[in-house]
């Protein structure tokens, strides 16, 4: 087994601790201006990465984050684990029963808030690929158009939940409709994105056909959300009473997440889908104690999330890859598609004009989910760095503006 050398281990520990401590300081500073935590983490990545540290002090940057040797491999493993964990906790908050419970207003809102931004994004990418410097070959163009549509239609549950909590709307009718619709958006969005990723892999490695991929994704999802969920539901009370608390349930839940992620990766669907679906199956259980849920959230959000979001700034030079035209197009499409779609859906579902607009702006927050989606697409070679930078900026702008714009339409 290859081991890290003594000096490599020191550098690895130094780089991780630097990322964690500085991102926490920035998150706490950002809190004063009500900025999302993810923004602080991204800024730390930009400061520690090639954009600032790499340009001003290339020796320090090269020492902390070397590009060769075992350290990048170790860090890549940690970042991959981080994204898997992030998707697991994102899944834990998706409760499909909420969508059913909220009835037609949630169904219409989630459908329209997905369909309109998806087709807006797809159409622009398909008919004007030159804007994004995408080749006109049908294969890559189709995959990019599908990705772009998905990227515009996804929502960010954690940011939305936080905004609603701050506005004291969390348990209100509007709040529940927004949460339920965002849950449904996330589920469908991640299913489509997993399929796009596996299709991208297929182009490179010729593994699975489209039919098989769809069959595996739907089959795996159905199995986990019915039989898998039942098994978890039956065994969870035992885990929480007979095993060490909370250690037992933590290790088993994270173990199931990794097992599920390994399975989907093995059948050539990305590991994130396994983690996300395992999260849904686990989080939806009535037996999962609130303390266990909080511990998993705290652990992932405060350890893995900062590492992942800081790592983004380490990989991409945000100044070099800033394209104002792409940023403007992405921002306009994101706002128009999502706000319009969610507002129309809520209005058809029976909400008043102002309430529908509040739902529209509430659903517009993309936050961390968009950044994760963009990072995975960038790693898979689906998008270029300028598009990635535009998506990150869009995620931040929509997250920051969502609350204040929503407030304008709340009675």
């Amino acid at each position, binding site marked *: 087994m290859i081991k890290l050398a003594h000096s490599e281990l020191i550098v690895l520990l130094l780089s991780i601790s630097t990322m964690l401590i500085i991102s926490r300081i920035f*998150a706490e500073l950002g809190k004063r201006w009500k900025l999302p935590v993810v923004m602080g983490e991204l800024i730390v990545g930009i400061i520690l990465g090639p954009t600032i540290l790499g340009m001003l002090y290339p020796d320090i940057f090269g020492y902390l984050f070397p590009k060769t040797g075992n350290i990048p491999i170790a860090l890549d493993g940690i970042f991959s684990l981080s994204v898997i964990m992030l998707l697991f906790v994102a899944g834990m908050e998706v409760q499909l029963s909420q969508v059913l419970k909220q009835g037609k207003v949630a169904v219409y809102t989630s459908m329209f808030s997905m369909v309109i931004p998806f087709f807006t994004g797809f159409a622009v990418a398909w008919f004007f690929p030159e804007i994004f410097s995408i080749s006109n070959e049908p294969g890559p163009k189709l995959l990019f158009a599908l990705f772009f549509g998905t990227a515009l239609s996804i929502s960010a549950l954690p940011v939305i939940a936080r905004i609603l909590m701050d506005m004291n709307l969390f348990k209100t009718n509007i709040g529940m409709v927004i949460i339920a619709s965002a849950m449904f958006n996330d589920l469908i969005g991640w299913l489509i994105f997993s399929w796009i990723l596996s299709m991208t892999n297929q182009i490179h490695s010729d593994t699975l056909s489209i039919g098989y991929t769809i069959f595996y994704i739907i089959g795996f999802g159905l199995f986990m959300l019915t039989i898998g969920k039942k098994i978890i539901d039956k065994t969870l009370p035992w885990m929480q009473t007979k095993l060490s608390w909370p250690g037992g349930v933590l290790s088993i839940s994270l173990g199931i997440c990794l097992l599920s992620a390994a399975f989907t990766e093995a059948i050539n669907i990305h590991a994130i889908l396994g983690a996300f679906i395992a999260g849904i199956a686990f989080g939806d259980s009535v037996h999962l104690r609130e303390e266990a849920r*909080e511990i998993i959230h705290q652990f992932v959000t405060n350890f893995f999330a900062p590492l992942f979001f800081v790592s983004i700034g380490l990989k991409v030079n945000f100044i070099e890859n800033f394209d104002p035209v792409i940023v403007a197009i992405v921002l306009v499409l994101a706002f128009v598609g999502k706000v319009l779609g969610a507002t129309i859906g809520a209005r058809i579902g029976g909400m008043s004009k102002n309430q529908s607009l509040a739902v529209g702006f509430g659903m517009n927050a993309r936050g961390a989910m968009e950044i994760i989606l963009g990072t995975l697409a960038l790693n898979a070679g689906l998008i270029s760095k300028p598009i990635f930078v535009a998506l990150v900026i869009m995620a931040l702008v929509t997250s920051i503006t969502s609350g204040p714009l929503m407030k304008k339409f709340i009675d």
Partner: protein
Amino acid sequence: MDLSKLKRRPAYPFETIAVAISFSPRCQSILSEAKRLSDIFGASLLLLHIGDKTSEKEQYLDGIMLAAKVDPNHSRIIWMEGDPVDTILQLCKLNIVDLLVLGALEKENFLKFYIGSIARNISRKAKCSVLLLTNPTREPLKFKKIVVNGVENPKTINTINTSLYLAKHLKVKDITIVNEMDVSGLAMAISDNSTAPQTKELKKNLAEDSVETLQMIIDKCDAGDIKVTNKIIKGKPGYAISKFSKDKKADLLVINSPDTHLNVFDRIFTHDIEFVLANLPCNVLIVHSRV
């Protein structure tokens, strides 16, 4: 079908009580209980059987009616063929039934639950209140502890008032009105950006809001000399109150009728009333407010 008499008809008083006769081993116990309730509430009794009418069945029914002391002059028997669920629902509407009494197993087997048993399917669709008896006996059931769902919903006030009406007639002195505090999503919202005091404050505010909401509902009700206790419990709506009723060894759980049309997906992704129907914690009264 003229449904104008049904619209806006209050959930109580119970003027017509119907009971579904299935000729099962528990049939006589269910009939005895329906008879007792009709006597207490001064309601007319309607016996419904969906199936063919044979002399053996008629003879058997006469026997159990005699044993349950059902006066044929103050009750009606309706025999009808057709789909049991649809026919019973239609008969209840036509006869302006206020309370339908049904026998129900505490738990159905896996397949039957997803397909939907007769009693549970009626409970999901009925346009009148439904009383599900899990363990009927020939001796009168004693309802000592009643648990009522105090969820924030326009129907709840009617459900609580119906429970109080029931409690007054059944001479129940103790009612617990429960509000379930659903904290799902809270862990996600507080995970990255809240200090310990902020988290504590948020949780405290949520709990206080629930107490306040419940108290506002209770204040609108006329409890008379019945002792009403309010209780806030954490957990998923439906599941939490079901567990609470079981732990408290309640005799009757009173809940609102469903707000939406329920189907098999509501059983797969269980929520609210489906948690109760999946595993009846005790006798259950589903109040249809007709509002």
